[in-house]
């Protein structure tokens, strides 16, 4: 850029300048995966559980765009349906941990006394339990499936959000606008929820976006080792596990597609999350 003149941009072009091309690409990938999964019952060419033993481990063709697995099931249809379970888990975890984390972070950051200190200690302690470990402990307690790991990971990711929110609130608390509201006699809940909370959303949102990728990978890993989603329900992690026999026999595709989708989604989410946090960082500095 040699010209440093900033012209106000109008119309759709304005949105182009909001995100980098890479982030737009990431957003497109994420949107495509979400839509294909969401509308899988309508869009999927086959029943994901339909077994066709005459057509096992077929390569990509007009009939089966991505080929079939060891039981002759259509891989594209399984991927699309698997996306529903694979994306649902992280969505619940991220929403749950964001809401809980924000609330606890607000309380911890706002209260100057012992409450903030105690909550800080609790966050520290929760950090000592890696999310995947907590999920496995929960599965040992409540049984296999999605319920236990989702519950455990929601709790495990609360401190990531809460610690961030807490530090942001501490910074906001001393800013003039908060002081002004206090002097003017506005009630604390109104100031905190109505005026401070909105200022936390962008930064916390960036963190939660990044968390989505981690949770997705961890839940897929749990399904991969047979502790998460149980067959015949399709799930990306479970699909990779089912394809291991074929892989050792030299058929790579049935494992390749779900692995590719997992990596693509995680990369896309990371790119979006980092773009968001970069932008916020740029705004603050």
């Amino acid at each position, binding site marked *: 850029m040699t010209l440093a003149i900033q012209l106000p941009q109008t119309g759709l072009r304005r949105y182009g300048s909001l995100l980098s091309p890479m982030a737009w690409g990431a957003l497109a990938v994420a949107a495509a995966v979400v839509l294909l999964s969401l509308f899988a019952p309508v869009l999927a060419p086959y029943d994901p559980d339909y077994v066709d033993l005459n057509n096992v481990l077929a390569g990509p063709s007009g009939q089966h765009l991505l080929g079939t697995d060891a039981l002759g099931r259509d891989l594209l249809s399984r991927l699309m349906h698997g996306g529903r379970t694979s994306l649902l888990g992280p969505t619940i975890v991220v929403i749950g941990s964001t809401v809980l984390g924000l609330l606890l972070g607000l309380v911890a950051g706002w209260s100057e006394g012992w409450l903030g200190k105690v909550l800080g200690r609790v966050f520290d302690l929760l950090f000592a339990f890696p999310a995947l*470990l907590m999920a496995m402990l929960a599965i040992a307690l409540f049984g296999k499936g999605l319920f236990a790991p989702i519950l455990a990971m929601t709790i495990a990711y609360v401190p990531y959000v809460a610690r961030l929110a807490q530090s942001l609130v501490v910074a906001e608390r001393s800013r003039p606008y908060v002081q002004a509201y206090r002097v003017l006699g506005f009630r604390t809940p109104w100031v905190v929820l109505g005026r401070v909370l909105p200022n936390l959303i962008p930064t916390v949102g960036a963190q939660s976006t990044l968390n989505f990728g981690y949770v997705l990978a961890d839940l897929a*890993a749990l399904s991969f080792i047979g502790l998460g989603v149980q067959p015949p329900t399709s799930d990306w992690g479970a699909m990779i596990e089912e394809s291991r026999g074929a892989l*050792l026999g030299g058929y790579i595709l049935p494992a390749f597609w779900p692995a590719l989708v997992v*990596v693509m989604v995680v990369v896309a989410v990371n790119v979006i999350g980092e773009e968001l946090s970069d932008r916020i960082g740029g705004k603050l500095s």
Partner: protein
Amino acid sequence: MTATEQVQATVMPGGPTHKRAKRPAVGPAVYIVKKLLALALTLFVASLAVFFSRFLVPGDPARFLLRGRSPKPEALEEITRQFGLDKPAWEQYLNWLGGILHGDWGRSLTYRQDVSDVLLGRLPTTLQLVALAAVFITILGLFAGIVASLNKGFGDRFILITLTAAGAVPPFVAAIALVALFSVGLGWFPSFGSGDGGLDRIWHLTLPALALGITYIAMVARVTRSSMNEQLLREHVEVATSRGLTRGSVVARHVLRNALGPILTVSGVLVAGLLVSSAIIERTFGLSGIGQLLVQSIDRLDFAVVQAIVMVVVAAFVVVNTVVDLVQPLIDPRIAAGTESR
């Protein structure tokens, strides 16, 4: 290098730091005692959480512990006696904690053995795997980070994009990809088992260790890169360069040394992450380590073993973090002096 030289190497070139002291400097003894007390407290509360997690399950605890097995009256009686289920909860906890501190970790229902024996038998494989992964992480991570930081422009961008992609590959996907490429495709490495000791063991553990380490290779490389970039801009590096030191010695003595702090800080997370992810990797490669044992014990509803492994991993994480906290002032005296705001 003596302690005084160390202080000079890190403090002198940059001159006095201009950050104001947050708290008065504390003696090293007070610092160490404080850290150790915090360690003990964290371990205590963590043990509470791990032990009482069982009480979250509604219903008869004896039947919970015997899930998947025939609840014969003798078995119920044995489990009640073994776990002291007829005693109040706090007494059960104290017995459990006392047992753990004395090396009695309870009995495994699956193996009909003491949990500690089962764990000890599996420990070497996991430690070797984690150690090899740590070697890969240190070498590849530091190397990639240093190269990226010293090469501006294309080299930096290329490594950064590779790292972003590598960091997004979950260990189990990396495992599958490595098996597809190096076992099935090229036939260079085995895809199963841990081999017989020595070189054969290392040969068998190479793919698992790489799969286990990939996320952290990327993480360490990124931390190294940004931490070095930060140092490269500091005045003390400029001074060192203008004194006519060679590039290699400037990087080694003035950039990398000061950049080690953040790298060390992430190593606590790293150890816990490696131990947990080893569950998935060991299962994929058929290695009989602690991780595989954890998954099997969850599968076979052997709760005493699960509880013990969770406690071990959490303890490892907390202990490593404390060690990092204790070692850091040795590397960066400003932390001990309380003048470095990081």
